[in-house]
């Protein structure tokens, strides 16, 4: 009976600061013990609890795809007590990881369909994992057309910039990047994600939509998707809740009878409509 | 008590009729014998639920600070206030949490609340059918007979040492009995505790609070504890640990009681709310006596008092300062 609360040690291999405000960093981990590495099998959309001894734990989405061997990326914004101290960690420090927890995006449902990804701000982490998973050469064939609409408040706030530019050039997917307000060097599209989505108007025919972003973006994106004809059971949201145990016991992350850490974080709009609107 | 109840009900009906108050806060019969429960009366037909007896123990002014902002502007709240409740209410006005015109105070001169534990000591299975009370006695009618208790010695400690049974500030006053305010006699229990040895005092403090399960009922029942974010719930920084280890529990109680210095009116709501029967009054009452003796100040007597720790005087005594000869 191993104690589910003991974190697995992992070394920080690389830290990249993602935005100009320097409060979003991506950490690249490698497990110290190999059996942890082999045991950590996850799918895009899942999350893990990052544990700093002496400060606590925080639930963060896994930003890398299982296909990126040798990399385990977590993108963390400095907001709370634990994330503040995580941002003080340097390369070579060891922190703890517990997980993987929660369910992944519905890869089987997405099989053989078009996929529309709508992301906003720094919530693009698990969506990046899904994109990398789908772009992987022997996975790409399983999915039809891939459209990504990703936006942030300002050009500086865009994360994974290098990969965004590469995806824009690649023919495997059509990438739309927007910012709420550009600056003088910004040549691409400007405008809120929901309005950009409306202009592009991807067909909802045989398409699954994955949405993840700040609550205000979701509030305005859902009506657009409905207008485009997406049925609730083919729109998927990844929710954020205060979590402590991650294994459905500490009782705090429930929406109705569903626990976000065990039955989520990915829910279809159909499921969410049945649950009480308390999230 | 029936006269008082009918007077109370007619008053409230009048107030509700000519829209003087939005709604009225009083007491209704609880679901358990010997218990009452706060009740919020809006419509006329609910007014019949209002009661008055020697078990109306909750301090209703604890609801005011969170309730009034939610009401439409200009609605007045009627509140039934015993002597101590009205002092808590006035203290809230002094601390600018409440405006006098938002509240219509229906004062009731109180003859002391009965401590239920002293009545239910030896019921051994008997079910309470009915309760009667008069000036000297409280009579319990059980299915296994009758039990009489003298009123004076089954009062709560805070009611035994009550200094202001009649509200000092009110709009309407219902007289229950002649109770002139007495001067603050230092509570004999506190005086006795002071004589004890230092170590014994600490051990009593530790033993008394070792039962605390940190449910925070003492804080949530106290009208003075209205902070939006209590120090006990701050996470940046977290002042003390979450375990029920004795040092965490003592930290919480020490600081909470210190926050009552010059504000506590000794209504006893914290002692009544505690499920573990911790006698917090042994510590909170000390500050009440200290403040009276040192600064001759009693909180909550008039809305235009100034707050004890909000003012100073140049000739405050400072005998406790370190002096070097």
């Amino acid at each position: 009976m191993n104690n589910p609360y003991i974190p697995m040690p992992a070394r920080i291999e690389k830290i990249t600061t993602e935005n100009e405000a320097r409060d979003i960093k991506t950490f690249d981990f490698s497990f110290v013990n190999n059996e942890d590495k082999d045991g950590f099998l996850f799918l895009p959309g899942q999350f893990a609890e990052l544990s700093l001894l002496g400060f606590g734990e925080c639930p963060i989405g896994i930003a890398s795809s299982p296909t990126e061997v040798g990399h385990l990326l977590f993108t963390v914004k400095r907001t709370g007590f634990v994330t503040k101290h995580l941002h003080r960690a340097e390369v070579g420090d060891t922190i703890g990881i517990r997980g993987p927890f929660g369910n992944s995006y519905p890869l089987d449902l997405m099989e053989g369909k078009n996929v529309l990804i709508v992301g906003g701000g720094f919530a693009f982490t698990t969506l990046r994992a899904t994109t990398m998973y789908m772009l992987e050469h022997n996975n790409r064939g399983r999915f039809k057309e891939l459209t990504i609409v990703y936006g942030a408040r300002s050009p500086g706030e865009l994360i994974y910039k290098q990969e965004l530019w590469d995806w824009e050039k690649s023919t495997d997917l059509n990438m739309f990047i927007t910012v709420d307000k550009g600056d003088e060097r910004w040549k691409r599209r400007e405008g809120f994600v929901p309005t950009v989505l409306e202009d592009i108007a991807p067909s909802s025919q045989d398409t699954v939509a994955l949405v993840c972003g700040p609550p205000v973006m979701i509030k305005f994106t859902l009506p657009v998707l409905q207008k485009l004809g997406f049925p609730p059971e083919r729109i998927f949201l990844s929710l954020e809740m205060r979590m402590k145990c991650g294994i459905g016991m500490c009782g705090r992350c429930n929406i109705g009878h569903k626990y976000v850490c065990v039955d989520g974080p990915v829910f279809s709009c159909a499921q969410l409509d049945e649950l009480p609107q308390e999230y | 008590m029936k006269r008082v109840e009918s007077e109370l009900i007619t008053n409230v009906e009048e107030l509700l009729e000519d829209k003087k108050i939005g709604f009225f806060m009083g007491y209704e019969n609880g679901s358990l014998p010997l218990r009452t429960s706060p009740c919020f009366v809006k419509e006329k037909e609910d007014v019949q639920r209002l009661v008055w007896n020697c078990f109306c123990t909750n301090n209703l002014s604890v609801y005011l600070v969170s309730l009034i902002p939610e009401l439409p502007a200009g609605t007045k709240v009627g509140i039934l206030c015993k002597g101590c409740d009205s002092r808590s209410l006035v203290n809230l006005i002094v601390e600018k949490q409440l405006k006098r015109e938002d509240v219509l105070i229906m004062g009731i001169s109180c003859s002391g609340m009965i401590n239920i534990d002293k009545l239910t000591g030896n019921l051994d299975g008997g079910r309470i059918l009915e309760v009667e009370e008069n000036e000297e006695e409280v009579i319990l009618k059980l299915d296994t007979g009758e039990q009489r208790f003298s009123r004076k010695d089954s009062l709560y400690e805070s009611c035994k040492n009550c200094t202001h049974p009649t509200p000092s500030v009110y709009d309407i006053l219902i007289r229950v009995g002649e109770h002139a305010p007495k001067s603050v006699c230092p509570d004999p229990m506190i005086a006795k505790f002071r004589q004890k040895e230092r170590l014994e005092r600490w051990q009593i403090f530790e033993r008394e609070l070792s039962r605390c399960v940190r449910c925070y009922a003492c804080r949530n029942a106290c009208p003075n504890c209205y902070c939006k974010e209590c120090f006990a719930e701050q996470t940046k920084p977290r002042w003390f640990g979450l375990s029920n280890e004795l040092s965490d529990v003592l930290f919480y109680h020490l600081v909470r009681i210190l926050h009552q210095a010059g504000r506590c009116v000794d209504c006893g709501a914290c002692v009544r709310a505690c499920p573990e029967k911790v006698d917090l009054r042994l510590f909170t009452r000390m500050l009440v006596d200290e403040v009276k003796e040192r600064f001759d100040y009693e909180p909550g007597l008039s809305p235009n008092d100034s707050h004890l720790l909000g003012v100073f005087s140049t000739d405050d005594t400072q005998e406790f300062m370190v002096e070097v000869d």
Partner: protein
Amino acid sequence: MKHESNERTSFDKSKSFEPKIVAFLCNWCSYAGADLAGVSRFQYPANIRIIKVPCSGRINPLYIVKALYNGVDGVLVSGCHPGDCHYISGNYFARRKFALVKKFLEYVGIESERVQFSWVSAAEGVRFAQIIDKLTNEIRKLGPLTYFRKGSTCKGDQT
């Protein structure tokens, strides 16, 4: 405080108990008094850890209890003499608060020498050193404050 004097006192620490004392010094008077004591080489025990605060009025009883909870054996709060306060009335308000805090902590059973208050002006370097000396001896006699420190009473750790 010269560096080597620190070495000397910490050397004989292993023999006798050396109390840890936190001193909240008001920036305008007491801290300047402490500075004067140091500049003029007045010797006083190195047990105090000085925390500079804008005024003695800034001290919330929460900080005093937090210091004792974190394992400190004594707390001193020192400010300007009444009347000299840079903020005119900071120490007057503080005086009322300290009177009640001191009486309450004493009443509850914490030795009264553990939490002390004093007025030290910027010119009283000598007096500051004497106060610290007196304070440290008193607390050294009392021994460590073990009954309130975090982790001292482990009721919570049931297996």
